[in-house]
């Protein structure tokens, strides 16, 4: 019980302790939202499955066995069945988790910082910088993101890396918008004025004062967008422009399974369900995070 008291203490003894205490209070608030906890559990499960894929999978995801193709779920040795090449669907799902995670993490790592930088700079500096950056953002926003991603992939060539780059390039503009809107409300606040009076430069104010306040709403938005990113990646995979066969990507699995959808429904449905569950989990998690990370929240 003592570590708990220390975390909730009103008199932390260092910045780290204060930060941990704030985190712990955030966790307590997060925990009250049951569905968000469920979302978190699923996301954690996804990470675990991806990390330990070789130990969890029962078969080599690429091993074909034409004698055992299109077995239904519950078959001996293949409890989620097999696909048209006799590959074990469960093992392919497990390895597919790696690719899914790879995509969402990489997209988030590329798109969020770009959006944050563009948005805060535009919002704080204003004037022609704002005008130029925001028109650029508008150009990107003017195209439906899947179409734009398609165009990028068409130009860069199909493949999972290019799909990631294409999705990242099309998903930063909303983040820039959010960051700019937040910055506009922050930049005239008294604490920014106080920092300026102390002689803090523009870079310091942006990085140390403005960005930390934008990060929370961005985190929420990125988490909520994860579902969309997974779906876009799956969509690209489905169209044959993302992951290339025989890679075990969920979208590509749905795509190749659609030929058998009437007679062997599981080939397309099971990876489809996986996409659905993980997308839903990210949405639930994002909702929970929004309750916790709102900077105006009082404890």
């Amino acid at each position, binding site marked *: 019980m003592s570590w708990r008291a220390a975390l909730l203490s009103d008199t932390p003894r260092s910045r780290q302790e204060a930060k941990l205490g704030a985190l712990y209070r955030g966790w307590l608030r997060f925990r009250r939202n049951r569905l968000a906890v469920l979302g978190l559990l699923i996301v954690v499960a996804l990470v675990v499955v991806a990390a330990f894929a070789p130990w969890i999978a029962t078969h080599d995801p690429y091993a074909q066995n034409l004698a055992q193709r299109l077995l239904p779920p519950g078959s001996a040795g293949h409890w989620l069945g097999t696909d048209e090449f006799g590959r074990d669907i469960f093992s392919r799902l497990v390895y597919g988790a790696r690719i899914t995670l790879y995509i969402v993490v990489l997209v988030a790592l590329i798109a969020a910082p770009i959006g944050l930088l563009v948005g805060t700079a535009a919002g704080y500096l204003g004037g022609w910088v704002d005008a130029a950056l925001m028109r650029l953002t508008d150009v990107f926003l003017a195209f439906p993101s899947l179409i734009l991603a398609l165009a990028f992939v068409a130009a860069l060539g199909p493949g999972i890396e290019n799909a990631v780059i294409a999705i990242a390039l099309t998903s930063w503009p909303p983040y820039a918008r959010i960051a700019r809107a937040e910055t506009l409300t922050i930049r005239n606040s008294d*604490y920014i004025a106080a920092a300026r009076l*102390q002689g803090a430069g523009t870079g310091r104010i942006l990085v140390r004062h403005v960005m930390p306040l934008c990060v929370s709403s961005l985190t929420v938005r990125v988490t909520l967008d994860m579902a969309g990113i997974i779906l876009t990646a799956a969509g690209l995979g489905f169209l044959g422009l993302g992951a290339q066969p025989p890679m075990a990507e969920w979208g590509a699995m749905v795509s190749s399974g659609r030929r058998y959808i009437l007679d062997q429904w599981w080939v397309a449905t099971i990876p489809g369900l996986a996409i659905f569950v993980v997308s839903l989990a990210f949405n639930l998690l994002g909702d929970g995070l929004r309750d916790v990370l709102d900077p105006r929240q009082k*404890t």
Partner: protein
Amino acid sequence: MISVRDLVVTFGHGRDAVQAVRGVSFEVAEGESFGLVGESGSGKSTVLRALSGLNRSWTGRASIGGLDVAKADRRLPHLAQMVFQDPYASLHPRHTVDRALSEPLEIHGTGDVSARVEAALADVGLGPAFRFRYPNQLSGGQRQRVAIARALMLRPKVLLLDEPTSALDVSVQAEILNLLRRLRAQQRLTMILVSHNLAVVAHMCDRLAVMNRGLVVEEMDVATLRREAPREAYTRQLLLASKGYDRAVAGRMVSFD
């Protein structure tokens, strides 16, 4: 110490331009406490923001300790600092007290940060227990103490106070006013206090200027205010109005445009 000459502050451009301050001049001697009094829209806070360097779109001359405010000299932060009205808006919600107080020292590469933060907290009557708290763990009065401590971290000679107690309860106001008076004596601060409250100005200042519609109506010393003997009708009405409600007085109020 502080000199303001023909200060004109304009907001907006072209036809929408509004002169919030229309030619204000005053001098404040070293160690003096000077009050700027007026109603909302009188331009008193605008003068302070121009003088602090937060607002740069003004004409005229303003200097603090011989440094031209318009030139944004790197030495100015060491000379003058400001305390804001709303303690709930003047502290960064994600920074601990420790970080808020260390920030000015880190910007200017001053050493011995830890000891100076502890000393600054003690100066404003907060114990070391407050050092690693977030603003949302502090009351309004405690936040304002932190804001004052932050303003004093660079050991400035001038403190610009923008309605420092008007967002606080009266009992907390008394504590903050006492603190400001004590700090002024200990650190030999020169102060400019902007307030709409004549009693607060009478308590805190040696001399004051009354502003209305962007102009200084009159300047007087605090003894004149205490004797309730101002020269101008505007000031007399302000004085009457701040003494509480009186039906007869209210009926005679006129507007000074």
